């Protein structure tokens, strides 16, 4: 099970992020997770939303460069050592992680870790073999 992530190119100038959230807010899009990778000159906003296709349409209409990438979402307990367990497995299997970020998903204390790895099918196989739960949406 893969998660659809939307990436948006942002210049490092005032108001760009606000503009994205305005587009999403008025389009009635619910944000599930968000992270930004930034460099000196630009940033890449990464979003998990409830309706990826509709979000893409809205962003493109507003003139943003955006694209959908598949990532792995792993459900973990929100407890010390939760992430460590997955990292250990990835490390043992030699999986190279490009980036990751996390989101709390409910009041029961479940969290989801979003992983971007080089070979997503390979990574997903490892997650599932280890008995961890990969989700497609949350």
């Amino acid at each position, binding site marked *: 099970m893969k998660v659809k992530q939307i*990436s948006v*190119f942002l210049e490092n100038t005032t108001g760009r992020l606000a503009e994205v959230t305005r587009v999403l807010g008025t389009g009635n899009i619910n944000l599930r997770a968000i992270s930004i990778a930034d*460099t000196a*000159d630009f940033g890449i906003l990464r979003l998990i939303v409830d309706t990826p296709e509709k979000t893409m349409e809205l962003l493109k209409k507003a*003139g943003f*460069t955006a694209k959908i990438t598949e990532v792995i979402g792993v459900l973990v307990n929100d407890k010390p050592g939760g992430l460590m367990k997955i990292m250990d497995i990835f490390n043992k299997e030699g999986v190279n992680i490009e*980036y990751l970020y996390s989101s709390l998903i409910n009041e029961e204390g479940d969290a989801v870790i979003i992983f*971007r790895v080089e070979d997503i099918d390979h990574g997903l196989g490892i997650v599932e073999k280890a008995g961890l739960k990969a989700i497609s949406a949350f």
Partner: protein
Amino acid sequence: MSREEMQALQLKKLKDLVTYVYSNVEFYKKKFDAAGVKPSDIKTLKDISKLPFTTKDEMRETYPYGLLACDPEALKEIHTSSGTTGTPVVAGYTENDRTLWKEVMGRCLAMAGGDEHDVVQNAYGYGMFTGGLGVHYGAEAIGASVLPISSGNTKRQLNFMKDFKSTILTCTPSYSLFMAEVAKEMGMDFREFNLRAGIFGAEPWSDNMRIEIEKKLNLKAYDIYGLTEIIGPGVSCECEAQNGLHINEDYFYPEIINPETGEVLPEGEKGELVFTTLSREGTPIIRYRTRDITWLFRDNCSCGRSTVKMHRLLGRNDDMMILRGVNVFPSQIENVLMRIEETEPHYQIVIDRSTSSLDHVELHVEVEESFFSDETKNLEKIRDMIHEEMKQALGISLDIKLVEPKSIERSMGKAKRVIDKRDIKGEA
């Protein structure tokens, strides 16, 4: 020489020139015939306006020898323009042309107070570019010692400057400031050097930049003007008054025209600078449109010279940019972006000189969906690739900035490709 004597000399030379090119250069004969003008029609200096202009495009189209007026064997030296738009412009020098070049360039050095006691550190590039050898000949003419060091290798420049006690530095104004930065890093102090004059040209610069150069390099900075099409360096130069560049008008006849209509404008009016080479034998040029904007004036110059002056350049009449002394056309940038598979030619150039006196050139390239990635390293890879390709194609390093699509202002018709924030117009 009185004004009348100068005009008489110019007229005599002009008549000879027109006869010479009419009988020796097919290109001019055709143009004169098409314009219905014969050499015998030139009776006064004013009659020069009957002659057709020569453009840079025509000089390119006639590459390599279409404008040659002499036997190719009579050429003793050949240079080409630094223009990087493909076909270069050719300048051919006979022995007499080279003597002439030596003379006019020597005068320029003399205007800056140069003589046989000087050590000229010539940091203009030697090679096909006219800057290096032109200045070299001038230094020979005044009997100075020359350090033919060419451009680059800045640390060595500074060490030699100190060790050989250079008194005159010749290079682009921005390179002189770069030298100042490197000297600072090396813990060197220009006050301990022997430099007293710098003769700077090949790119536009402002009075503010002059103040900065004079302060940082502890010398007097002179503006020099020249172009390959006409001779190279040596067309005009500032004297001690630093108020306008004296034109060597006995060799290069200047006019200012309205760039739209081609009409000759009176002295004092701003327009496009046009030159006719009065004495060249190899590649004589009739009414060359320089595309440089300035005006001509005469004053009772404190240096005693009575030659006509041109104000330092106010700008250019076309879209060519001079970035760190290198000619760059927007079309070149477009070509590179089109060549790179991932990118589209949606770009803008922002030139600034506010932070340091070196041109800071930023190339804004729109991020297309075709190469956008969720990973920063992929975008950085594209950015670095653009940087490398531009450097290869243009010869200078541009800062590449990736921008959001459509963030570059689209205008109706001609896109606004260049945002020039440099203040090079000075008091004008």
